[in-house]
């Protein structure tokens, strides 16, 4: 008898593992590809960690901007591109009037807010008219708005809109292709808004990891003492303590000694933009909180069943508009964080790939059209951008062509969206048929 239950338990366990593998197949596949890519690229560890860290802080906000429409049942909001345009309008204004560093940054946030909210309201109205096709409509809206945006800055700036100076092309019409946000004055100080957010607090990354490690160890020790856990929970806690300790020791070795090989010792030089990171984390927590308020409940109800929501007195169209307004606003803020980190604005290009990369990252993190969490956003950004960093070099090392790696990552971005959307549509169709 006892043997039988044991056997059952092991079968159960195996099923659990199998389920886990199937449910997370996309994410796991990307973990494998990333590890393979890192090995193939032979990238220096300090460059790799530095680049990943930078991209994690500057891209995650944009990915998080996708969450609210998903909860509201509107799918992946490809029109965050328009939020990015609102941000770029604000950045152009700030750069044009030469508002320096942090003041410029703040101004950009303030100016972009009403623009994004107004545009978001109209996108919301439009998407309400295209129910059931929101995602493709939001994508086409992005393309359409891109046309208008180019019309304004290529043909109206300098002619209808009174702008002059070195921003305008020599023909007197249209804005330059790139706007430098890292301009310096005679004394050599940066007066543009570039990196102004990142520079508020910069701390060596491995000091941060040490603090994180201490927190992890403290948490699990506290848990052990208070709850006296048994079995697997106990193992987990012990594992946590060991992991934390390993991280602590590794970080300490990097920061204070020279025992490790030189290429690992270089990790010491990595700085983290702590303020930006804290802003991103605060925004993530804000997302959790807002989804647990009354508004969050309303959003969820609308997302689950529009008819029930309507019957229970929720103004569905208004709620959907609000979801898109918030998403557009957050995308605008996210784009400001993104551009200030780059330090240069590509007037006609910086916004183009935003939606594609954000959506691909979220899906790689394991999200679907109808369900997405903050953890998936972070994990997705980590995996997608690791792939982004290593693929050109991996392509060069494996096939002698860096371009191959670049094409591969574009293929991955499109492919993962296509597969995820296809699978979702397939599941919905089967569910409909079963009813």
């Amino acid at each position, binding site marked *: 008898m006892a043997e039988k239950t044991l056997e059952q338990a092991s079968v159960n366990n195996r099923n659990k593992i199998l389920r886990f593998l199937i449910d997370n197949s996309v994410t796991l596949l990307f973990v494998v590809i990333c590890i393979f890519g890192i090995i193939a690229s032979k990238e220096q560890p300090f460059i790799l960690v530095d680049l990943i860290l930078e991209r994690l802080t500057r891209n995650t906000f944009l990915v998080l901007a996708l969450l609210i429409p998903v909860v509201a049942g509107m799918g992946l909001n490809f029109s965050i591109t328009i939020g990015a345009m609102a941000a770029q309008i604000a950045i152009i204004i700030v750069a044009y009037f030469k508002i320096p560093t942090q003041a410029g940054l703040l101004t950009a946030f303030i100016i972009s807010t009403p623009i994004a909210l107004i545009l978001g309201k109209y996108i919301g109205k439009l998407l309400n008219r295209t129910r059931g096709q929101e995602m493709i409509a939001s*994508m086409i809206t992005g393309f359409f708005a891109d*046309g208008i945006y180019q019309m304004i800055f290529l*043909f109206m700036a300098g002619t209808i809109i009174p702008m002059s100076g070195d921003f305008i092309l020599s023909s007197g019409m249209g804005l330059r292709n790139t706007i430098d946000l890292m301009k310096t004055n005679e004394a050599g100080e940066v007066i543009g808004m570039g990196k102004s957010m990142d520079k508020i607090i910069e701390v060596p990354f491995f000091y941060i990891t040490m603090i994180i490690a201490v927190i992890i160890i403290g948490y699990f020790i506290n848990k052990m003492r208070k709850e006296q856990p048994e079995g697997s929970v106990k193992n987990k806690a012990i594992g946590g303590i060991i992991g934390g300790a390993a991280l602590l020791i590794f970080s300490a070795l990097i920061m204070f000694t020279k025992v490790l090989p030189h290429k690992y010792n270089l990790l010491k030089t990595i700085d983290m933009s702590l303020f930006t990171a804290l802003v991103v984390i605060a925004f993530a927590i804000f997302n959790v909180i807002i989804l647990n308020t009354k508004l969050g409940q309303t959003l969820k109800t609308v997302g689950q069943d529009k008819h029930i929501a309507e019957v229970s007195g929720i103004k569905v169209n208004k709620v959907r508009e609000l979801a898109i307004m918030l998403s557009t606003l957050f995308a605008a803020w996210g784009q400001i964080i993104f551009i200030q980190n780059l330090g240069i604005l590509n007037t006609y290009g910086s916004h183009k790939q935003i939606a594609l990369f954000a959506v691909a990252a979220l899906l790689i993190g394991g999200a679907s059209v109808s369900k997405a969490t903050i953890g998936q956003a972070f994990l997705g950004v980590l995996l997608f951008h690791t792939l982004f960093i290593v693929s050109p070099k991996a392509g060069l090392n494996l096939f002698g062509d860096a371009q191959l790696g670049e*094409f591969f990552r574009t293929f991955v971005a499109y492919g993962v969206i*296509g597969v995820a959307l296809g699978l979702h*549509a*397939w599941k919905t169709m089967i569910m409909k048929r079963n009813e």
Partner: protein
Amino acid sequence: MKAIKRLGLPRIIIIVFFLLLWVTAGVKGLHIPGLLKDSTVRIGMNLIMVLAMVPAIRSGIGLNFALPIGIICGILGGVMAIEFEVIGFAGFLYALVIAIPLSVAFGWIYGIMLNKIKGSEMLVSTYVGFSIVSLFCIAWIVLPFTSDEMRWPIGEGLRTVVSLESTFGHILNDFLDFDILPGYRFPTGLILFSGFVCLIYYIFSQTRVGIAMKTVGDNPKFAASIGLNVDRYRILGTILSTVLGAVGMVVFAQSFGYIQLYQAPLMMAFPAVAAILIGGATAKKANISFVIIGTILFQGLLTISLPVASSFFDGGNISEVIRMIVQNGIILYALAQGGSE
């Protein structure tokens, strides 16, 4: 009044804009025969790709944003013709002979896939199209082509733009061409061929299979009840659309004189979708007159917007910007109309 309502505001704007541009071109004293010639060529070279939307809409899969699948097959045909140095008319035919079976195969697989995702065809097909194009970006580097016409002199892979000057460039355009007006050289072969393909499609649509396909698209439940195999007709529609995309691409390339590889086909579905919508089609209703009217309006508009704009100011890339606004505006309009029904 009723006619205006049926046309819809965006189409009226486009028609007015189109007429306004031609009048302006006349007033400004631009070389009208030259503009007519350019317009005719562009209408002819885009017609078949717009026609490719018809079987897709008729069979019920909606606007085929995955047209790049067919386009890639067409490009493969053209590239093979260059690789094996088949020149002239033979080269053009060779490209078609390679492209058509390939597009049948791809269209068939893709059609099976579309049957599994009914209701989300447009969105998924957009990304299927994007994925195929980016996959073939890798293929253009990796595939073992040897022709010096196409390879980079140094380094790996094919060039981004391959000239057809020495193979089958302008082969249709120059066939039996003649001057209607001084400076307006009529691309007889191109128009004949495009018209011929339209005619074949028209004849097909009058056959039993064509009518059955339309029934499936109009009302799948009714079609199933009278014993039609809905899924099979949808696959047929997808195959036809993909084949027309491939043929359209070969015609486009010979008229253009170049084959553009890599990212170039990425957005090619959108102008075709926009053209048929401008012509009066919806995601559920389409016929050949919409194709012809839409292509004339849209491509005519794009062809002359640049010279007209240039006559006022240094036009820059205004044609491209107008294309983006008109094209995506009309698609959005069509989506919004579909949603409110």
